[in-house]
């Protein structure tokens, strides 16, 4: 088991290494990173002096090694727009994104589990059908469209909720609802499907034959095994949650990491973009490692 986890950790490090290369070399796609990073109206002399200041005139592998060394110590260079270290800009924005993402994660997994279990236990009833339709819709509607729709209905038409900003609980409602919708739908569908499958297994029949209560069978025997596929895909859903956070923050003017990244891309502030991409990759690798640990704990077969 320790061996399995060590291998996974090693793979995670490799992934980060690769992402750092992608992030670094993407600036060289047009051949001249100095021209890419400078504003379009910069003169040739300005670009040349900037190129020298950034070290872009040195051999590319030396530049990459230096970038890697700096990234390991958290130095991504200064933001050209804010004249501040990119990392400190990033760190300032993390609490806002964490608040949004955790709220979305909390309501969507809680309700996802509850509705998934209800749908599985009452398979093919009217309730089940309703839940299936809702979760199908939840996965089909783009985050940004749902967000805008809620703004139209709840802010513009009825003035119930504020459409932007952060600070009060009311301002958290719509962003977290629209961000969690996809996740909620995905969890509901997955819990329903895997619980239905688990309830059809032999060990559930055995448990029933032993005369255990239906509650105990569902929770102790079926649900525990139904959790395995749910946990496995958490890592992949987490990536889509981060992508969704980016869009949600733009729509609701939420001052988080996603908005920082998009604004940095739009203003060609590439040191900030590099820092954000590497940070989200790091977060992703850590979350996936935690998922691996949970997977080992849930599935005794790997522990051998």
């Amino acid at each position, binding site marked *: 088991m320790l061996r399995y986890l060590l291998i996974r950790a090693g793979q995670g490090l*490799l992934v*980060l290494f690769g992402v750092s290369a992608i*992030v670094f070399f*993407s600036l060289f796609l047009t051949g001249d990173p100095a021209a890419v990073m400078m504003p379009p109206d910069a003169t040739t002399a300005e670009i040349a002096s900037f190129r020298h200041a950034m070290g872009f005139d040195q051999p590319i592998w030396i530049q990459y090694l230096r970038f890697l060394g700096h990234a390991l110590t958290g130095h991504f260079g200064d933001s050209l727009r804010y004249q501040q270290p990119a990392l400190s800009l990033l760190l300032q924005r993390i609490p806002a994104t964490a608040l949004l993402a955790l709220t979305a994660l909390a309501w969507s997994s809680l309700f996802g589990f509850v509705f998934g279990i209800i749908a599985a236990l009452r398979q093919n009833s009217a309730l089940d059908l309703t839940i299936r339709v809702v979760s199908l819709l939840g996965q089909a509607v*783009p985050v940004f469209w749902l967000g805008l*729709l809620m703004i139209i209905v709840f802010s513009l038409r009825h003035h119930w909720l504020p459409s932007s900003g952060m600070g009060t609980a009311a301002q958290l409602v719509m962003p977290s609802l629209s961000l969690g919708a996809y996740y909620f739908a995905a969890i509901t569908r997955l819990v329903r499907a895997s619980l239905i499958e688990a309830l059809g297994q032999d060990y559930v029949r055995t448990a029933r034959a032993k005369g255990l209560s239906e509650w105990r069978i569902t929770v102790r025997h079926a649900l525990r095994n139904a959790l395995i596929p749910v946990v496995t895909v958490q890592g992949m859903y987490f990536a889509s949650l*981060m992508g969704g956070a980016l869009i949600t923050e733009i729509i609701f003017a939420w001052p988080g990491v996603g908005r920082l*990244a998009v604004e940095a891309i*739009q203003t060609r502030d590439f040191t900030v973009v590099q820092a954000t991409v590497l940070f989200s990759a790091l977060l*992703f690798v850590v979350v996936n490692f935690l998922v691996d640990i949970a997977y080992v704990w849930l599935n005794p077969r790997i522990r051998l």
Partner: protein
Amino acid sequence: MQADLIVACILLVVAFGTCILVPLFWPLDPVRGVFSATFKPPMSFAGGHLHPLGTDQLGRDLLARLGLGTAISLGIVFVASVISAVLGTVLGMIAGYFGGWVDALIMRLVDMQLAIPFILLILLIVAVIGPSLMNLIVVLGITGWAIYARVARARTLEVRELEYIESARAIGQRKLFILFRHVLPNILVPQTVLLTLDLPRLIILEASVGFLGLGVQPPTPTLGGLIGEGRSFMLIANWLVLYPGLMIAALVIACNLLGDWLVRRNDLREL
């Protein structure tokens, strides 16, 4: 569940009908507007023309723009997903068949792809190389091959142990010939189903990039671009946001239902 299939077909007919028939036969210009006809609500007349979905801030007919926008977005998505599928299938087969360090290398690349929030990477690359139609297709295409590679590899691992592959090896056929002649036909069906299941992701991704203004540039309409533009006028003209979003939802629901149906029909639980 035949009902799923029927719903999927109806939605697909509506979507494809709009994106094929409207650009071909609808008389109003999707790019040039009439200034006397700005912000007309749906089903209103202006200048002797009916605007079934209303008009936008430049007096352009929304139905004409939605038709062309859907065609362009779907075109991008289809070409990009074929690129992903071909790339992923070839790499996955190679990884599964040859094993060893080739396998390890390709699978680490897969992990890497799954580890970056796609949208950030795509935005970064598009910002560097510029948001043209071609660039968008290439970037979406080469960032989405990971899941195809995973499935192709798993299938190849199963198939290569079968007896007829062994006999092909025994009579001295070349490895590449075996891969494309004997292994590939076995994984075509799951890969096609996977493509259907992956389309919704790409549709939403393309729309998100367009929404953020880094997709195909205006005045050319795309599904996401329409919503992004309409967002500024939500207070006075919510139809500009409403209908493009409904189109995206219809496409995604149709692909999801169709994909699930194909999975059940072909008994492909592992997808």
